[in-house]
């Protein structure tokens, strides 16, 4: 297993982030008060980018863990390894962040196993400690340590909803797609595409978001728009760019694909 070097997780260059409301102030206030933060919102609307931006702003290393079905508590906290006949303990990402005062960001937290989620409970309330059962130790979090989690309430199934005992420890920030003007601005900025076309892309995104729940699980995210815009800026025909970067990413259903493609070919 590779050893983490926390300094690799520092963000030196300012990530591009356009605030949509007072989320920066809220996050900062929460951070100063050592309150954990929950980011809610559809996929690709800028939650991860926001975290990067905040980590840069607060000058803290950011450790992102993408949660999944098989993520165990050991994956977060740490485990024993055997090397040359000796056992040695290695800290997991959460323990490292706790010790070094980093920001630990658990992305798509509901995808993690329920027993894993409980590990963060003592960190997420006023105790701010991380018990490591296997070592029999209790680590007190560095004052600069912060924990943030994200999830997408619309997309996850009801069965996988976040436990009340977890969610009620967090300050919640709701994220949504930026409004059309801002989203156009973001697309222009990230892709270098001309404003007129970027505006149309944003309109197209709006149309796909209209289809949410009527055959699409999610509409096109800002991230997908940036992908399409990059293709278009590189000279790809707009309709093909939308098909490749957006429609195909949204669905495999042939009829839905046809509908989405008809929308893009109508717009461009």
């Amino acid at each position: 297993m590779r050893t983490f070097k926390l300094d690799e997780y520092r963000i030196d260059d300012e990530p591009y982030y356009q605030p949509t409301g007072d989320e920066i102030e809220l996050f900062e206030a929460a951070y100063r008060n050592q309150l954990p933060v929950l980011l809610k919102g559809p996929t690709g609307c800028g939650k991860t980018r926001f975290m990067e931006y905040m980590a840069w702003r607060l000058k803290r290393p950011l450790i992102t863990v993408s949660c999944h079905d098989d993520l165990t508590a050991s994956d977060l906290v740490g485990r024993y390894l055997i090397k040359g006949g000796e056992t040695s303990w290695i800290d997991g990402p959460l323990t490292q962040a706790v010790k070094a005062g980093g920001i630990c960001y658990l992305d798509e937290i509901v995808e993690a196993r329920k027993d894993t989620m409980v590990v963060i409970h003592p960190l997420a309330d006023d105790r701010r400690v991380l018990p490591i059962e296997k070592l029999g130790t209790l680590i007190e979090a560095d004052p600069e340590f912060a924990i943030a989690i994200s999830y997408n309430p619309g997309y996850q199934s009801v069965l996988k909803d976040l436990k009340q005992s977890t969610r009620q420890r967090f300050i919640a920030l709701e994220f949504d797609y930026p409004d059309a003007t801002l989203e156009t601005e973001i697309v222009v900025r990230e892709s270098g595409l001309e404003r007129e076309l970027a505006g149309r892309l944003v309109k197209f995104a709006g149309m796909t978001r209209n289809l949410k729940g009527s055959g699409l699980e999610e509409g096109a995210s800002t991230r997908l728009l940036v992908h399409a815009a990059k293709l278009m800026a590189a000279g790809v025909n707009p309709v093909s760019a939308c098909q490749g970067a957006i429609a195909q990413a949204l669905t495999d259903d042939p009829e839905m694909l046809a509908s989405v493609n008809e929308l893009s070919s109508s717009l461009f």
Partner: protein
Amino acid sequence: MPAPRPLAEIRHLLDELLEVEFSFRDTAAPAAAIAELPGPRQAQLISWIQRVASTHVELGYQVACQGVEAQALMEPDTFEAWIFHSMDRYDAEGLRPALLAIEQYRQFAEQQQARRRGALLLDHEGVLSRFLQGLSGRPLKLASADRIYTDSETLYLPPLFSLLPSPAQNFQHYKATCALLWAQIQFGSFRPLLEIPSPEPDLLQLYHALEMLRLEARLKRTLPGLYRELEQTRLILQEPDLPAPWQALSVKLSAPDMRARDTLELARQQLGRLTPYPPRHLPVTLDLEAVRICMAARIEKERARFKVALNSVLEELQRNSPAEQPQQRRFSKRQQPDTDAPEGFTTEILLDDMPAPLPDQVQALQRSILLDLGEIPDEYLQPAGPGEYDATLLQDQNRDADDVWRGSYHEEGAHLYDEWDFQRRHYRKQWCAVREREVTPRHDDFVARTLEKYHGLIKHLRKTFEAMRHENRLLKRQPQGDDVDIDALVEALSDAHLGFEMTDRLLTRMQRDERDIAVIFMVDMSGSTKGWINDAERESLLLLCEALESLGDRYAIYGFSGMTRKRCELFHIKYFEEPYGELVRARISGIEPQDYTRMGFAIRHLSKILQATDAKTRILITLSDGKPDDYDSYRGQYGIEDTRRALIEARRSGIHPYCITIDEEARDYLPHLYGPAAYSVVDDVRTLPLKVSDIYRRLTT
């Protein structure tokens, strides 16, 4: 090649098929015509007559009378389509319309010609309705009609577009026409008209013609790609240019700040001076009355819903932060200029001067209100509780399933599923109208009797099922894991000291054998199960439920039965989330034989339900007494091939289908359907209750 039959034999055959003895039907003429045909065509036609007559003798007779000429006029597949079309009419509307359809075979043949190059609404409905949903954000329905118009909720379009030379072009034509109708709604064409009590027809006509010019200019700006296609279509159709005075007006109407109100003003100015130019091909018409009725109902409904929704937003906020006083919070709106918006500005709802956190469905409601009214009236911003409105306004009316079947709106609210036609080698689109229905619970002594009868068995079943429940196990000596296996390590170290190679299996790992299984039991409720099969099925289900309760697997039970594609029914006995109790038992007791064994739709619908549940293993177990069979064409190979296709689809989506049957001939066809290892034949019905649990146990371990 069959030899032609002699006239007398044909006559005799027809007499028998068409029950001439008991009627006034005269088979002389048709028999004579058929006798003239070469052998194979004779055989073909007679088999059709036979099939149709099995549905209704009079229809068979009509096919006998018209068949020879119709056959000469049509290709075999068109001929088949004509017969099916007539049968469909019979299914849906009864004998008279079906007879008419048979009589009008010439028109049918012509239409079929048009169909070949044309686009059918039926085929493109799915794509078009999603296209419209994407455009508008308000769900718009599509329906076929003779004219092209909209009532602001449904777009009415001809069932077939065939003016252009190719199917693709005709589809584009459909799409552009849909977009024009959408534009009427989107850009507020109806709004100024609704303010005039009864506009004179001339004004209305002129307004409509002018308004179409404004809308086209709008489309050109918002959907340039679509507008290019519209122009292409015009070019192919060789539409004449606009007359000179109209061209000037068109330029005027193309200005971005023109609203419907301005068009009406213009129409008033030009009234008497200008007559609408002759209608173009497939013109969009304006049915103000339809709009008026539809809109009025919707506006009332949406006002109620919006106010109630705002109230629940307040309640939700109150729940999250109980300290704040809900009474002091106030909704307001903010309008911002936006040239793209139909009225020139966008409206945003504010709560205490901050953008209000409106849930998705409220935002959709807001969009819809904006489409109708152009703004959110101040009165709408006063939240109201549900008690303050007629409750019927707050929910969509559900029609009674039986009423739905009786009426002509049989597809309303139904799930539509494709069906595989092996002969054509493609799907019949949205062929089966599937509805979920309730089983009437029967509180009789069946449950008590069965539990008594199988008393010992149930105990045994529970035990074996309980044994299947896994607990978490600690696996030792693993190459990968969470913890060090100290025993293994000590051994390995001593090995190392002795000079042996050290093993790498030194860790422990927690194995979590959670049974993450979701099962649906799909129970045959066809008429053939009447009697002891039905009893055995019900007993099996009961025993299974009793056993499953101790296991904790998620399971659902549905019965299925079909009566033609129009009436495919799934009977809900137990949902996944429903607890097993008195009611479910009474429903099991209430399972009664219904109609036929149409299987494809049931597999497709239940696969969809299974897929929507969150489980690692998804199993669909069919409990059946025979092969797929329904009284339209769902027999023999057709039914088997459709069922097979549905099973392939299910498997492709990660579902494991399994079939338990008591049909002794099942070994002939089940391997073809389910694969060699995915079925069991129970030879003796009486042992079914015992076998089902046993098979289930084997299947899930």
